[in-house]
């Protein structure tokens, strides 16, 4: 028997969902599903199936839950399943939470010592015909794309030589290679980064290692035609923290930020580190190499955005200080300095959870799709709570050429999750296709999948789920040409 204490932060729309689900032929409102959308919008996120063992454990420890909207000839089915990791199975067998704080194994129940602690809750990818749920503390977990049942960890036939695998690998659109990495690659508290190239058939074809200036979270990277770019900094950890039963990372605002640039034709010893006043770099949109310059775009927070990673100076997390702006950073490889140019390219805040048209990975691109909060839009506080100005209520197509934002407003009781872009066809111009993403409808207590024309940002149809869907972190469109969804 489980007791799910009704905490002050798990009420109403935010209460645990817990169930697995199948909905066949989902209700569609406002239009028809385009018949050229064949594949699935797959997302992963989650919630604690059993409450956390310690009160300071947070959102990154929630049990993974993978779900998909399966599109086939104008019909959409929904499926949601827990990612059945060894951790999830052990908890279920014991009917309670056996695992302690985020990436801290020292206070787990002794019965699970040595067991893989990952919850595989961060991102999903498809590569070489396989579907994976990812979390940066472990190997990828393979998932059956037809059933969404969990198959198990995958080490690329023993050829992938890191204990960890990022949630954000990147793809070379020309070769189909997956370029991936793991930090803390040799185990807990190690400071080596393992970089690996996996060809389009799933075979490891190249690898290298290097060390960071200090051990820190390295959540995402940029792939250009010639370089890999690794932002890091601010998040710190050590054995003293872990032995004091703290979560893996603390936020040290006195720690410098770094950006590592690794030539794709070099090896680990060729990495060059640029230094920056500290901002919190979590996600990056993309970048390119132009001559001897590397240029990236990213949403950067002016402080740590995660309340469950406490400040090392003892001050409380302050949510009013975590604004995210879209930046462009330019690194001059000819320069002898360790500094670089940084400009804010849109004056209004927007989310770092944005996407470009993946076919332009590594090259110049013009459009970024991301979410933002427009406080001037209406919000029905009586039906959805006092969240006016606080919800992400718009998707935006951010045009880097004109600096114009084309919005799509989700509704006056809605809050948006991350979107995904689907090209109209393989050869369609950049940004021509569909944008889709899930909106939480706080009044109707349900999830709604918005499908829009990505150029005009007009809504084409909305898929209605008759329940709240478990909050997802990242999602991705995967076409029928990538995976066999049945």
């Amino acid at each position, binding site marked *: 028997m489980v007791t799910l204490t009704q905490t002050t*932060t798990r009420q*109403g729309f*935010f209460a645990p969902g817990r169930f697995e689900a199948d909905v066949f032929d989902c209700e569609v409102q406002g239009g028809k599903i385009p018949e050229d959308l064949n594949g699935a919008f797959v997302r992963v996120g989650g919630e604690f199936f059993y409450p956390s063992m310690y009160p300071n454990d947070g959102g990154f420890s929630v049990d993974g839950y993978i779900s998909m909207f399966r599109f086939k000839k104008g019909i959409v089915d929904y499926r949601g399943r827990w990612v059945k990791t060894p951790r999830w199975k052990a908890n279920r067998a014991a009917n309670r939470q056996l695992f302690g704080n985020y990436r801290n194994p020292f206070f787990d129940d002794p019965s699970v010592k040595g067991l893989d602690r990952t919850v595989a809750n961060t991102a999903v990818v498809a590569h070489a015909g396989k579907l994976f749920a990812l979390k940066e503390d472990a190997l990828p977990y393979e998932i059956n794309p037809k059933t969404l049942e969990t198959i198990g960890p995958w080490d690329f036939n023993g050829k992938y030589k890191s204990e960890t695998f990022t949630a954000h690998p990147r793809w070379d659109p020309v070769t189909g290679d997956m370029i991936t990495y793991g930090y803390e690659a040799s185990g807990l508290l190690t400071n080596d980064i393992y970089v690996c190239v996996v060809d389009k058939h799933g075979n490891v074809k190249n690898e290298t290692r290097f060390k960071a200036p200090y051990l820190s979270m390295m959540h995402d990277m940029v792939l250009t035609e010639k370089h890999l770019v690794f932002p890091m900094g601010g998040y710190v950890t050590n054995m003293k923290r872990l032995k004091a039963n703290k979560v893996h990372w603390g936020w040290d605002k006195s720690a410098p930020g770094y950006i590592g640039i690794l030539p794709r034709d070099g090896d680990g010893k060729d990495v060059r580190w640029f230094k920056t006043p500290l901002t919190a770099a979590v996600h990056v949109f993309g970048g390119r190499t132009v001559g001897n310059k590397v240029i990236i775009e990213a949403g950067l927070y002016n402080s740590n955005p995660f*309340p469950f990673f406490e400040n090392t100076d003892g001050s409380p997390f*302050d949510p009013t200080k975590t604004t995210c702006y879209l930046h462009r950073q330019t690194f001059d490889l000819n320069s002898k300095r360790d500094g670089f140019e940084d400009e804010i390219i849109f004056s209004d805040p927007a989310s770092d959870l944005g996407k470009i048209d993946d076919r332009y990975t590594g090259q110049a691109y013009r459009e970024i799709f991301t979410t933002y909060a427009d406080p001037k839009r209406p919000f029905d506080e009586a039906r959805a709570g*006092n969240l006016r100005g606080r919800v992400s209520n718009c998707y935006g197509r951010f045009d880097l050429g004109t600096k114009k934002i084309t919005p799509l407003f989700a509704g006056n009781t809605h809050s948006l999750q991350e979107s995904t872009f689907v090209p109209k066809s393989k050869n369609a111009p950049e940004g021509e296709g569909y944008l889709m993403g899930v909106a939480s409808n706080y009044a109707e207590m349900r999830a709604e999948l918005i499908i829009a024309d990505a150029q005009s940002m007009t809504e084409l149809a909305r898929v209605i789920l008759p329940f709240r869907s478990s909050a997802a972190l990242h999602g991705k469109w995967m076409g029928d040409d990538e995976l066999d969804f049945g």
Partner: protein
Amino acid sequence: MAGQSLQPSRRALMKGAAVLAGATALPAAWAAGAIGETPSRPVVTFYMDQLIIDQTGKSPAYRPPAGLRSAGPVEHLSDAEIRLLQGWA
């Protein structure tokens, strides 16, 4: 009609029960909080599409929607219309 007024309708009972249940579940900070206030003690607030406890107390307190899971959305309907909506009613 006079006879009906002596006996509360099903929807009136449902609404009353739900509002009562909601009221008892509300932490005091939510009931007291309002946008613009700067409480000096921890406050439940909305952040990144979740509710969190803001230890600084700087954020506006979250107030859930009125009538959530209550009969609010159908209170304008007649008893007959409700019977049509709900086969079991």
